[in-house]
Structures are given as structure tokens and as C-alpha cells.
């Protein structure tokens, strides 16, 4: 926990410096008769973030905040395995949307999750895998008129578009 607190504060401090540097692309100074320039608002806020990180680091060194006192592990193996699996599955799902679209990627993710993390029966899983895309299509594409990304499966939807739109 102590190590995690330190790493998080350091990473955020670096991020603050990056934000400060990025803000200087616009004037950060005081424009007479007008007030601060376009970059000033984010620049000084990022400076404030950096100061907060320094305060967090100070608290860490003096062991003042609860996470900096705790010797518990930040994440035990079981948690790492679970959260890791879910996060990687999510990343793969979102990545796959670019290629095969929502209607293939999301049901696959749900099937994976329900089978490998939930150990549910294939019958239950298949009902979700079939129903989800149908409901999604009618709600978002037909009712809301928001086209969802379909990747290479786009052409399979042409007849559906003709039918409902």
C-alpha cells in the first residue's frame, strides 16, 4: 500500500508537470485590461496539482495518511488476477470494436465474462448473446438514430437499414 501511494503520487506529479508544460502553448501570463490568457487557467491549476502531489508525498514520508501507514498489500494475487482479467477483456473488447464492430465484440465479451468468470451454462449465455445485439440495434440505431461502429460487419447491416430506416 505504501509503495502504491508513493508511485501514484509520483506518476500524478509527472502528469501535472506535463499538463503545465502543455498549457504554456497558449499565453499563460496576464494580458493587461483583460485578465489571464487562455493557458493560465489550466497552467495554474496544474501547478496546484503539482503542489498537492508534493503535499501527498510529504504526508507519505511522515506517514500521515492512512494508505502510507498501511502495510497491507495494495492488491493481492486473487484481486490482480480478477481485475487484470476483466480489464484486459475490456481492452480487447474495445479494441475489437474498431475491426468487427459492436455487434460482434460486445456479445463475445459477455460470453467470455459469463463463462470464465461466472461459469454459467451455455444456454443462459446464448440467450444473452442473442438478445443483447437485437435490443441494442433497435434501441440505439432505430429509436435513437445513433449509428454504432460496425467495422467490417457494416455491409451485413445494409438490408436491416433498408428494412427499418
Amino acid at each position, binding site marked *: 500500500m505504501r509503495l502504491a501511494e508513493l508511485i501514484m503520487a509520483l506518476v500524478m506529479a509527472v502528469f501535472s508537470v506535463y499538463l503545465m508544460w502543455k498549457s504554456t502553448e*497558449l499565453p499563460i501570463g496576464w494580458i493587461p485590461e483583460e485578465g489571464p490568457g487562455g493557458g493560465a487557467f489550466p497552467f495554474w491549476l496544474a501547478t496546484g496539482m503539482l503542489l498537492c502531489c508534493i503535499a501527498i508525498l510529504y504526508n507519505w514520508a511522515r506517514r500521515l495518511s492512512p494508505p502510507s501507514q498501511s502495510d497491507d498489500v495494495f492488491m493481492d494475487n486473487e484481486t490482480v488476477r480478477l481485475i487484470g482479467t476483466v480489464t484486459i477483456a475490456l481492452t480487447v473488447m474495445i479494441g475489437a470494436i474498431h475491426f468487427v464492430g459492436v455487434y460482434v465484440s460486445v456479445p463475445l465479451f459477455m460470453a467470455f465474462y459469463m463463462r470464465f468468470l461466472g461459469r454459467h451454462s451455455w444456454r443462459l449465455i446464448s440467450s444473452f448473446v442473442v438478445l443483447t445485439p437485437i435490443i441494442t440495434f433497435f434501441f440505439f440505431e432505430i429509436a435513437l438514430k445513433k449509428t454504432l461502429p460496425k467495422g467490417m460487419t457494416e455491409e451485413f447491416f445494409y438490408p436491416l437499414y433498408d428494412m427499418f430506416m
Partner: protein
Amino acid sequence: MEILYLLGNGFGIAFEPLNLGLVIFGATVGLFIGAMPGLGSVNGVAILLPMTFLVPPTSAVIFLGAIYYGAMYGGAISSIMLGIPGASTAVATTFDGRPLALQGKADLALVGAAVASFVGGTISVVLFTAFAPPLAEVALAFGPPEEFALMMMAFATFVGLGGDDIPKTLFSIMIGLVFSAVGLDIISGEPRLIFMGLPGFFHGINFLVLAIGIYGIGEMLWTIEVSRGNVTMSKASVSIARTIDALKQILRTWKTMIMGSFLGYFVGILPAAGATPGSLMAYGIAKSTSKDSDSFGKGNVAGVVAPEAANNAASTGSMLPMLTLGIPGSPTTAILLGGMVIWGLEPGPLLFVDHQEFVWGLIASLYAANFFALIINIAFIPAFIAVLKLPFTILAPIIFALCVIGGYVPTQDMHDVWLMLIFGFVGYLMRKLDYPLAPAVLAIVLGPIAEPAMRQSLIGAQGDVMTFFTRPISGTIMAIAILLLLMPAFKYLPFGRKKEAK
């Protein structure tokens, strides 16, 4: 009397078939969301907001308001049946609700929670109806400096009253504000903070991306970690005779209910405070003023009634500053406020002038949502208990899918979906380290209003910073804000030694 006339018109709008249907549907959905461990009103509103583009703005806000209410009722169900709070707002309900359930009196606790929620909700809506129009009238005189001062006060309450680690709270506020500055600079129109030159940053970071990331993805990861252990569910036997008997016992606690309602309402108005501390305070007061305070924590129905009345009252209370001043009183209302901006409704006192049908329709629908949530809750207690048996491994993938699609819909840009995943994951890690995340969500919603308010004030005053302090209303608010900011420092004074917080 003008208020009654306007309220009457509001009921006309709330009882239009579409809106009434949405109130009932929203209250039901809210009850389910609230009943599920780990999900509360803020998660429901964040994840479902993109779905409401289907209906006109007034109906959409009515629907989300009903979810907000329903979730406040529903939170008690898992607190009582599982001993796990359905949301942080229902933590205090576990103290006595769980012991009651273990004694086989789950139905008493559940009915008590529902009735108290109704009382809290109703009293607070009445207070709301009375307070909102005069406050909006005062607020009409506000210019950019006052607006900016109000936002400073909203952020200062997080520092002064939030009770979290102060540097981490400030960090959360500032990172939210910086993210809100991404996109085009509103005054000069120049591109700003376009990270790595990605075109997706030109349209800015939509507050929903952060809200769904934190309250959808991040919350689910958190719940997956926390809910690994086995939970045991209590049995509830429900019958009409037992319900009537329970009602008699509950009505004897009317004083506690009324105390909880008033307390919750006024605590709810403060940004950063909201329903969770409101319900804890109500519990504390109920316990300390009770004749048999020893029975609290062992299954006293007054210990269920007080926090439940308070958390519902607080949810209404937090809408007061949102509608009249444009400052949200809770994370949920922050998301509602962001939604209103998307729908083209400028939050703030002008709503009461320009969009009367919206404001009064919403207020009237809160009365209706309260009523229906009570009826649905009591009538379908067994159905909501069944929800608790739904395995999380079915629920979680559905919610993840909703988050991904919901994150895509507002801007129709995959860039936002990736950003949402990153926010969710980093937010989860930060939450484990006690970083409060609600201030960041509030900040990203308020940032686009706060920055122009500040810069317009300065342009108006030819760059004179004192403009925030010399105008009477703005100066007073600023003084309160500074006092709140300094409040944590006062804590150290009585000990006679100075511990620098920074």
C-alpha cells in the same frame, strides 16, 4: 399563491402520459439499481443518461429524477437483506436494518425504510417548492463574479466538510477543472491541451466520459474486488397482516422521521455533503436523543427510519442549488446538470423565467416519483429481494456493455470510449488510495461554467481581481469559501502545535 398555480401547471406536465410512464418506469429502474450492491443513484444516472436522448429534455430529466429517487429507496433493500449497503447513502441503514433482518423482522425494516423514504421525500419536496422560487429570484441578480464565487464555495465545501484527505481532495478538484479546459479556449477560440495531437481532444472531454468511467467502469471494478466474499441473505416473510402491524410500529417513530427529513434536506443543499453524511448525522441524532439509545445497533426501527428519511430528503435538497444557482449539491445532480447543458437548458436562475414548464414539471414529477416509488417498493418487495440473488457475473458484463455503448453515443467517437476505460481504471486505483473522485466529476461539469465566469468578470473589471471581493454578494460568498477552505486548519489550533497541511 402563484407558486400553487405554477405547481398545478407542473402537475399537468408531470401527468402527461409519456412523463407519467417515465416516472413509474424510472422509479422502478431506480429501485432495482439501488437494490443492487455497489450501484447507487449516481451510477444509474451516469450510465443511463445517454439512453435518454430518445425523449424530450423535460421528460429525460423527469426520468432521471425518478431514478434518483427510486435508487434512494432501493439502497435500503440490500443494506437490510445482505448487510451490504446498496450505495454509500444507505450505509447508516445497515446499522439497525441488518440486526432487524437477522431477528426475522426484515419486513419491518423494509417497510420502515420505504415509509421513511416517502416521508423524507415528501417533506423535502414541499420545502423545495417553498424555497426554490425566492432563491431563484435572488440569484437572478447574480453576474459572472457571483457565479464564480459560488463555484469557489462549492469546491471549498469539499475541502472544509468533505472529510477526505485534503491534498487529495484538492488534487481531484483541480484535475477535474484541467480536464474541463481541454478543447477549444472559449475566449480566444484557440485549441488547448490537445494531448499528443489526437483529434479526439478537439471537442473537449465530455463530462459523461469521466462520469461513466468513474461511476460505471471504476465502480464495477471496485465492486468485483469487494464482492468476492460470500454473502448470506436474510429471509423476509411478507404478509398483509404483518405489514399493517409493522406500519403501526413505524408510525410511532414519526418524530424521528420528521427530524431526519429536515436535517437531510438542509445537509443535502450543501455541495459535497449530500445524502451520505446527512443520513449518518440523522442516525447519530436519533440515537443520542432516544430514550433507549442502547437498543440502537441491535435492531431499533428508529435507526432505520432516521437515515432513510434523511437520504431521500437530501437528494431533493441537492436539487435546490442545482436548479436555482446552477451549482450541483451532489455527484448525481452534477451529472444531471451536465445533462441539462447537453439538452440546451442553461442551468441557473433563468430556468425559472425561461423554462417554467421544465422546472415545475420536474418538481411536480418529484412528488409523483415519491408516491410511486413507495407503492412499487412495498408491493414488490419480493421482486427486489430476488434481484439480490442475481449473480454479479451476469450483471457486470451487461453494465460494462452499457458503459461502452453509453460512452460512445454522445459524441460517436471511439476516442471517448478509450478515454473512459483509462479514467475508469485509473479512477479505481486512485479510489483504493483514498483519493475522493466526486470532486473531479463536479469540477469537470462546473469547469466550463467557472472559467468563462472568471474571465468575463475580469474583462468586465479591466483585470481587477478585487472585483470578486468588492461586490457585496460575491464578496460574502468568497469570504465563506475562504473560511471553509481554512476550516481543516482550525482543527489543529486547539492542540497548540501547527501541523502544516501542505
